């Protein structure tokens, strides 16, 4: 029975790592400036964890094979437990140190570093079960948000008050996020009801959108194309269907698009 168990364990281990090694199902290609750093961090963790996973399952299998039918005198681990404990602390400790240092750097570049002062500002409003995006318009100033004015029925998703608020009059509100490529983007995330999330796997970004808090999020897209923005925070019955599109255009295409929107 020991040999059967050992072989089964080895087969399970090999089948488990095969799709990882061959990237059978894998992350889509990164399209953000910080994306390759995240991928690098994940790859390093994958190699270290993969070695630990395969080694420990194989050792378990090996011991079960060797001692499944062993009837001789009981043997104790040569050298006792102290070297094993020391080995574990040093090995895992070093792994933790390296992962923490490198990983914190990547995290800091995404969330702690200040956004580029020239970043393009886009305001995001999340609600059950849609995203809306707002551009400041020709005056470069966003109108104020008035929760009492928010009304999906008449399309006032942000609660703007154009009658009394000059800055709000030229604000552009659309249903998909259109941005220029290779330009720093600064989003301010608002939610009017539940906690939602702004997740674009290709951007390697995931950020909750919390009612009552205005959360800044900055990134730079490095490729043109069209990707899905999906909600990953359970927000109600239509959670699975809550999505919008991210359109990354060349600067000239973006300028044309913006002009078109202002003209409407």
């Amino acid at each position, binding site marked *: 029975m020991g040999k059967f168990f050992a072989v089964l364990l080895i087969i399970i281990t090999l089948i488990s790592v095969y799709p990882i090694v061959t990237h059978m199902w894998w992350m889509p290609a990164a399209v953000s400036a910080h994306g390759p750093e995240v991928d690098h*961090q994940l790859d390093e963790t994958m190699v270290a*964890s993969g070695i630990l996973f395969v080694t*420990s399952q194989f050792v378990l299998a090996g011991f079960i094979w060797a001692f499944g039918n062993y009837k001789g005198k009981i*043997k104790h681990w040569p050298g006792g437990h102290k070297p094993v404990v020391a080995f574990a602390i040093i090995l895992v400790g070093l792994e933790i140190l390296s*992962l923490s240092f490198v990983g914190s750097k990547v995290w800091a570049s995404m969330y702690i570093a200040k956004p580029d002062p020239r970043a393009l500002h886009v305001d995001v409003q999340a609600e059950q079960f849609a995203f809306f995006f707002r551009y400041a318009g020709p005056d470069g100033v966003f109108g104020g948000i008035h929760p009492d004015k928010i009304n999906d029925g008449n399309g006032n998703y942000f609660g703007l008050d154009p009658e009394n608020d000059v800055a709000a009059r030229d604000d552009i509100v659309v249903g998909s996020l259109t941005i220029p490529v290779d330009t720093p983007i600064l989003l301010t995330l608002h939610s009017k009801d539940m906690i939602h999330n702004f997740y674009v796997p290709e951007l390697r970004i995931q950020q909750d959108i919390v009612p009552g808090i205005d959360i800044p999020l900055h990134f730079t897209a490095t490729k043109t194309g069209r990707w899905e923005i999906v909600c990953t925070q359970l*927000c109600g019955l239509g959670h699975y269907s809550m999505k919008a599109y991210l359109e990354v255009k060349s600067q000239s295409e973006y300028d044309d698009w913006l002009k078109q929107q202002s003209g409407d």
Partner: protein
Amino acid sequence: MHDMSAQPAVHHHSPPQGFIKKYVFSLDHKVIGLQYYGLALAAVFIGMVLSWLMRLHLGWASLSIPGLQLFSPNGAPGGVITPEYYLSLMTMHGTIMVFFVLTNAPFAGFGNYFLPIQVGAEDMAFPRFNMMSFWTTFVAFLVLIAAFFVHDGPPIAGWTAYATLSSVGGISGPGEAMGQNLWAVSIALFCIGQLLGSLNFIATTLDLRTKGMTLARMPLSTWAWFITACIGLLAFADLLPACILLILDRTAGTSFFNPAGMVVSDTLLPHSGGSPLLWQHLFWFFGHPEVYIAIVPGFGIISHILPAFTRKPLLGGMRVMIGCMIAIGFLSYMVWGHHMFVSGMNPFSAILFSVPTLIITIPATVATLMWLGSIYGANLRFTSASLFCLGFISVFISGGISGFFLAQPAIDTYLHATYFVVAHFHFVMAVAAIFGIFAGTYFWMPKMIGRMMNETLGKLHFWLTFIGVYCIFMPMHYLGLAGNVRRYASFTDDYLVPLIPVHKFITIAALLTGAAQLIFLYNLIHTRWWGPLAPDNPWEATSLEWSTTSPPPFDNFGGRHLVVHQPPYEYSVEGAPADHIMQTDPGPVAAH
């Protein structure tokens, strides 16, 4: 260590007469332990059926499940599960499994039955608290199940019940009216039950040990229940007020979790001043230790059972494993923020929470290496119990290693809320804990019901379950790497549609693995009435539960006051006359 219990425990009550006092409102810790186990058994099969329904929906969203419309005409019209009913099933699955299975069975169930016996006591320190603890938990379970039968169905906010979805009332979605109220009341009651139980475990361990049962001679399972009780005392003392605040927000118009300016269905809500993140902090300050409430008893059970089937003490002896469990329990209170890397809290705190999260892998790794090292040079005996111990080591490794990814905020920004997380916590917390429960069941059931379980069926159960859990949960890692979001009722996004075949595979694996659990159920029921009678010590083990009859008499030791002379795992001691020395053996104390 100082022996604090020179006086043997005095029994607090006499044997009860009549069915009700004997089996229903019993003060006997053994009956209460079996009651907890029975409740967990009922709960785990309900939770499993819920997961079948969820899995069927994820594989085949438009599938009509015959008869389901009779159970829930609104949630499954024509037998087809609606997206919101999927969320209800998911919420109930998580809540039932985490609270009523993973907390009840390994901690309250086995702990109640065996902690007093393993320390040589006749009962728990507070038998009446103990009875209240179970019946409060039982009422909590009924209140939760009642959510299936209220008009708008069970809540949809997940077992984590994040505000504001959970805190603004029925306006936020179906199930968020009465269903969510019942959820919050149920969990508050559950907390009370666990607090009573934890106090009892701690007092019994410290005060009711028999003569010679020093702390250093307590079996590792007792140590694990004791440490878990200490974790639970803090964790449930945090969740209870959190649930009360949630109930107040929902029913009394307070704004603990509700900020100003919320607009739902074009209605401006009258709240102001609350924070949805407060709920997350309160919840995860309980929620992360809860993971260890589920798994530390598993550590203890595996460490207790493994020596009996390797015929040698654990590598590193008692101290290393006790140290690991205490370190894990201590660190479990410093890591709650790793559930909140993307929540919008201060990004600096993510780094602060990441470091202790990674550090917690050190005691977990040491414990795993101690188990592995104990197999080296062993005379392995393959029984259903030992197979589940070995399986536990394998699945705990698989689940633990994915923690390296999620502990790093930069990687978590990609993997958070994907199936990678689902794979991680199911392996490390659910499957590992369930394997611990199965190992405990096959090991202790002969003592608990006095009959031997069928080993052939037990081993068949193990092989099917072991292969099954890898087929279910390993592919979820791949889904997560591909960005597959969890808690989706169906996959309509362009990038998710190609992943549906993987979901179908997982569904089939889940149905088959679930069906294999019927073998276990049959074995358990058959054993209870028709199994061969168990000897007092079928596994040739050493701790005090094997020094009494199977099952033990009402006062555990038939009026004897045991005196303990030996450490708990004296297997294959050099120069000893037998291959194991019972803890009660008055012979010379072994050299090591």
